[in-house]
């Protein structure tokens, strides 16, 4: 049964997690954006801040409601926590008999995610499918994912670029959490409805100053998610989308978007599911020790598709087409799921405001006149 935690007691949750040895990561406001960082106390959270998002636009504004989680998703995603942007894989030492490979140990850590949204929980599940449940699990990613406590937060607002309702990934977290919070902000009564999703979650909840929720509170929390879903201004029609994209690789819309796309790769960096990586081999100056580093890579770079003689995808048109068709179509063939969770980050952080929902809808449609 759900329980209720007073907003003034939210810090008890942070301390309960820290007390169990978790490094608590969550949203904090920094440099004009809400990013993910260590949360040591509830007061570290971006209290009273809302994000105003649109294509190529992101601003924080202060409100009087004092809510802890009135914003939606920012430029960071939990991808950086588990599928880290840069990591060394191994060192190699040269000696008389050749060389020896010294692998870097898989990291061990207990991490609590405070404030993961439904779309982000889906994004983590998609990366798990690729990086843990495939034929070749990534041992470092798997280690980082092995001891994670998830505190979900059900969104009380739809962000300006959100479309999770179309992708079936939100706004309400249905599973994949230990605890799920719905923030109820009423004059003089600020509290959280807390749903328990696991035994670990129940154990943590038992340490908190909670009381059982009454039916009105359960109903109020449900209507928060309903209102958020209804307020979502964007949608993507996914029926037949995969086939439509794969059948229209020569559609003129690709030329059209190529005139706007800068191939900067922002969309791939902020995307919570994009998983492509590059490897860099380096040596020390003496040439005795070498190492290999893995880092995030974007399919928008020229080097991404390099083979001897040049890049397979030298035009921006081909690179945008690769990204979009992979995300919304090829992903189904490869991993049995869409690669998009409707978080809207790629729309917000695109410097020219290209909207994946508009582009996907236009590909395959008859060309407009004029």
């Amino acid at each position, binding site marked *: 049964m759900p329980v209720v935690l007073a907003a003034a007691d939210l810090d008890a949750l942070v301390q309960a997690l820290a007390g169990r040895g978790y490094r608590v990561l969550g949203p904090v406001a920094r440099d004009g954006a809400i990013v993910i960082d260590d949360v040591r106390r509830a007061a570290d959270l971006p209290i009273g801040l809302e994000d105003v998002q649109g294509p190529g636009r992101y601003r924080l504004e202060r409100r009087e409601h004092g809510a802890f989680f009135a914003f939606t998703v920012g430029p960071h995603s939990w991808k950086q926590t588990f599928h880290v942007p840069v990591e060394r894989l191994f060192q190699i030492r040269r000696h008389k008999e050749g060389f020896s490979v010294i692998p870097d140990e898989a990291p061990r850590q207990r991490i609590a995610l405070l404030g993961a949204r439904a779309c982000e929980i889906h994004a983590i599940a998609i990366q798990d499918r690729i990086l*843990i449940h*495939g034929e070749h699990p990534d041992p470092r990613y798997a280690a980082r994912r092995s001891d994670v406590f998830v505190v979900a937060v059900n969104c009380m607002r739809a962000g300006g670029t959100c479309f999770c309702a179309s992708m079936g990934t939100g706004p309400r977290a249905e599973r994949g959490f230990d605890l799920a919070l719905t923030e109820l902000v009423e004059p003089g009564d600020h509290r959280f409805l807390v749903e328990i999703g696991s035994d670990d979650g129940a154990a943590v909840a038992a340490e908190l100053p909670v009381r059982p929720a009454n039916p009105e509170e359960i109903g109020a929390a449900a209507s928060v998610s309903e209102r958020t879903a209804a307020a979502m201004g964007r949608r993507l029609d996914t029926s037949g989308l995969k086939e439509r994209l794969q059948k229209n690789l020569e559609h003129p819309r690709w030329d059209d978007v190529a005139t706007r796309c800068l191939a900067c790769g922002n969309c791939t960096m902020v995307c919570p599911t994009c998983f492509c990586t590059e490897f860099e081999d380096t040596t020390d100056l003496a040439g005795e020790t070498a190492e290999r580093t893995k880092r995030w890579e974007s399919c928008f770079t020229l080097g991404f598709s390099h083979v001897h003689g040049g890049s397979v995808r030298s035009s921006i048109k081909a690179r945008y087409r690769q990204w979009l068709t992979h995300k919304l179509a090829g992903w189904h063939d490869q991993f049995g799921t869409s690669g998009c969770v409707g978080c809207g980050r790629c729309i917000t952080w695109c410097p020219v405001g290209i909207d994946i929902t508009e582009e996907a809808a236009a590909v395959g449609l008859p060309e407009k006149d004029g």
Partner: protein
Amino acid sequence: MNVSSAPDPMLPEPLRITRAKREMHGVFTFELDVSARGGFPFLPGQFNMLYPFGAGESAISISGDPHQPDRLEHTIRAVGAVTRALERLGRGDVVGVRGPFGSAWPIREAEGSDLVVIAGGIGLAPLRPVVYHALRRREAFGKVALLYGTRTPDDILYRKEIERWRGRLDVEVEVTVDTAGSDWRGNTGVVTKLISRAAFDPGRAFAMICGPEIMMRFCARELERLGVSLDRIWITMERNMRCGIGLCGHCQFGPSFVCKDGPVYRYDRVQDLLLVREV
């Protein structure tokens, strides 16, 4: 969650070069010592990632005999930083190896059929294991033909072996070059022209092709014209393969990863994509 205890496929294994042979200008073959690891089993068509110390990795097909897993061979053309670093190595030096990765030529499926092997330039290297297999299990196949096209008579890869195969009475071997001096008595022109002259039954043939994309497309078209079913034509694709295990994303080709779903593909499954530029 379980963390797999299987060996990390991202870690290169140091193997010593026991033989380094210059094949022709800028092309060389390494034989690697795999005795300490009990051989290196692979399927024809598969590749390894080769690592010269500190320089990076390159995907190189295995070009040796699949029936001799104690000898691991790669034929390499020096075209980039990594392959040029490999070229500087010789007997006794050590290279890092990861693999084998990727799909294989359908040699079992092709048994009982005529076999047409068509190679262009260094594309013979990934097909040489098929030729070795077919010659060892000659009785399992109908007619066997090797059709090879290359730029000039100086660019004939594995020339001595081709001449030896050509001396056999149970294999048809045809070579053609794009350009040649007046001392060349062989065929000139594209390899496609050899197909209709080769003795095989299109109704019961398997074709395996490796070369530039355009050459493979024209060969497939010619084979189709002669009556070979497209689902019995196999080609091999080249993309930027970096991890070899479908995780880094670089080698995507339509909905597939060339390193994992390829490099060997059944032609009818990719023919539409081959017609789209920059996929």
